[in-house]
């Protein structure tokens, strides 16, 4: 970040860690604090979308979309597996962070790529799921239930996709030798975002798929 430094840089000063070398008031770096603050805001975003879904979830046409109850198109075992895949990616994210903190770059690259792959698998599952639902007659404009469902899960999918892009950026940086273990905090910050997105999915999965 193009931060301002309070004093002249010392030898070994790292321009990426402007405040890192200098004590911040809280001791938390600006970048990490900003991510925490941003995630606070994201809570309100998903809060609004989840509230909308809760308000509309029972408002489907008589007999449900496909005659199998109100959200009869859901394939809960399938989604459970893709949810499991997403949650496992939080574990690999932790392993990636731990690896780079140990300066084990090979392991870091493995784990960060694994995390991105698990995330991509989840997204692929979502794409498959959406296509299947659409074929069964649940389009975006079919009912207020479907509009709310696609908007909520779609927003989450976009967040996961952004996370995957960040993970791949870390991977590329690492390959190019630009990600020293002294910059492990960058990984930690991406990790914060990634875990947040996973936690939100636990909520969404429970509310959308599991609550009858």
């Amino acid at each position: 970040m193009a931060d301002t430094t309070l004093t002249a840089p010392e030898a070994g000063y790292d321009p990426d860690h402007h405040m890192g070398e200098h004590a911040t008031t809280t001791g938390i770096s600006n970048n990490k604090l900003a991510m925490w603050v941003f995630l606070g805001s994201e809570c309100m975003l998903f809060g609004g979308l989840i509230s909308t879904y809760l308000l509309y979830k029972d408002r489907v046409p008589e007999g449900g979309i496909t005659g199998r109850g109100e959200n009869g198109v859901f394939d809960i075992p399938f989604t459970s597996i893709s949810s499991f895949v997403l949650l496992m990616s939080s574990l690999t994210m932790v392993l990636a962070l731990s690896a780079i903190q140990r300066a084990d770059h090979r392991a870091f690259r493995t784990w960060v790529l694994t995390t991105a792959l698990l995330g991509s698998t989840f997204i692929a599952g979502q794409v498959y799921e959406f296509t299947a639902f659409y074929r069964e007659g649940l389009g975006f404009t079919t009912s207020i239930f479907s509009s709310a469902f696609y908007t909520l899960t779609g927003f989450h999918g976009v967040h996961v996709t952004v996370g995957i892009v960040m993970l791949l950026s870390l991977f590329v940086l690492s390959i190019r030798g630009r990600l020293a273990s002294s910059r492990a905090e960058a990984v930690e910050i991406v990790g914060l975002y990634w875990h947040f997105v996973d936690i939100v999915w636990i909520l969404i999965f429970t509310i959308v798929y599991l609550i009858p």
Partner: protein
Amino acid sequence: MAITEERPLALPSGGQVRPEPVLGVFRRPTTTTGWRSWLTTVDHKKIGIMYGAAALFFLIVGGIEALLIRIQLAAPNGTFLSADAYNQLFTMHGTTMIFLTVMPIGAAFANYLIPLQIGARDVAFPRINAFSFWSFLMGGIFLNTSWFLGGAPDGGWFNYAPNSGVIFSPTNGIDFWNLGLIIAGFASLAGAVNLITTVINMRAPGMSLMKMPIFTWMALVTQFLLLFAIPVLTVAQVLLAMDRLYDANFFNVEAGADPLLWQHLFWIFGHPEVYLMILPAFGIVSEILPVFSRKPIFGYPFIVFSGIAIGFMGFGVWAHHMFSAGIGPLSVAAFSLSTMFIAVPTGVKILNWTATMWGGKLRFDTPMLFAIGLVTMFTIGGLSGVTHAVAPADTQQTDTYYIVAHFHYVLFGGAFFGFMGGFYYWWPKVFGYRLSEAWGKFNFWTLLIGFNVTFGPMHILGLQGMSRRVYTYDSGYGFSFWNMVATIGAFIIALSVLSFVINVFYSKKKASSLPPVGPDPWDSRTIEWMVPSPTPEHNFDEVPTVTQLDEFWHRKYAEDDDGRVRRVATGEEVAQSGDGTGVHLPSPSYWPLVVTVSFPIIGYGLLYTLWLTLVGVIILLVGLYGWVIEPPDDIDQPHGPDDDHDDDEPTAAEASDQAGTDGAEDDTEEADDATSDEATESEEAPVG
């Protein structure tokens, strides 16, 4: 490779002594003067000034809209405007004043003052700060182009669904409203993250939260309100946009949608919005009153905690906007009660300000007049606000001019008077000259009179039963006289705003024959007055160590042996005056502007043709990529004599050339030292 030698920084006179970057794909701009510097600046002070200038421009736009409305309503059966034009005008007047004037002026003060008041060189993320400003400006311009592209939004600034659906509002106006405010919302959100991080993390040594100037405190609460309120508005607007553009059903009542959903989402944003507009003005007044009363603020902790309380409670009272919407007796009772409670912390503030003035040696300079104006006018607005908390009264008053009177007393008499006081108070610090007192007093008295003549009678009109948002009225209801009075008042307000503009130019011209204003023209109390006027680019030569509240004042005054407070130093003696040698500042950047330019293009694409969206997305991606891989601040890079450039930006050809060669250099370096710790990215992708 980091260089340890100290370098002088760019002098305020425009002398360019900064080295150029040599690594990376694209040379960072370094110009600190000229119009280009305003496009690329990341300096919080310049960004603050641009926020202020843009907001004043939109103030005039919104003011003209208001005058047109008042001309239409001056006499019964007005034919000056069509009903349709009237709808667009009152919608755009509200939207412009709230989102493009009051909020950005608050942001202008926050941007300029927060780093100075907490003793920081800049905000935590200067480029994100520039992004915020450009994003706001792009959103505002995008929204206003709707006038020329088939009609402005016409659903009121709240655009209640389903009235704002395609069926009732078939033009693109409300789509412009949705997309424009989502773009402006990025600005608020990014600004909130940035300023919260700045205040929490970058305070000067010794400045605990309870030694922080009150303006910074109120601005911090404001940023938290933005942080949590803006996403809710964004959700509401996304849902509405989905309905309008892609036939979703969120507000389609035939498909079983709940028409109250919009109102809940909108007011969960909208009520905190009211407080986030007024709190910066409260902060400004809390700075002005002690200085011109020559007393410390009365009950500092009460002012701070009542501000925090207002912030929290602001999220708990939204449904008092919906008493007449049929939300049920229990909800009405609960929200009626919570709304009455929120008057308590506000009242605490009013009493503290009054007590601050009590027994003080008052000086009635223009900033003080505006501050007193806020206290009195806001009190009137606050009292009429309490009458809305009483649900039975509210059902009578709602959607009449009584409401119009109330919120103009709160937001115009409150926020705007505070901002005017702030302009007069900090103008010397920002521009190095004082505004004329004579013109300032004319400005104040015309504003006070015009304001009361305009909005005072609206209380009467409202109680008489005149509905708001109706484009004309018949004679014979007894509305005619007070409407004419209100229209005359509106033109007095216009005269007052004009006198402010005249004052700016008149005082600037006159200032050349006056001695320099010095760092401390008002005998102030907070540390932003320790730096020279106008503030140099590097802010403080040396970051001051803060030991108490009103640090600057305590450096000027001390108790003698008899316990009497005596001046021991002048402001000039205590202030700093160096040239900032060795201070390192971030370099300007093109990328925030490039990124934000993509937003309106994407917006037009969504409304007209998809290929334009693709163009916008490409610009966005290029911008983000450029932002992320931009070389770090050039200051730490080695540079030889042949690297010296003049102020000119590189031409496109030069730039791409540079990109090519630099990239190549980069790669060879990498090969030599693959695990080099040398970080040439200026930031991590995720937080950029």
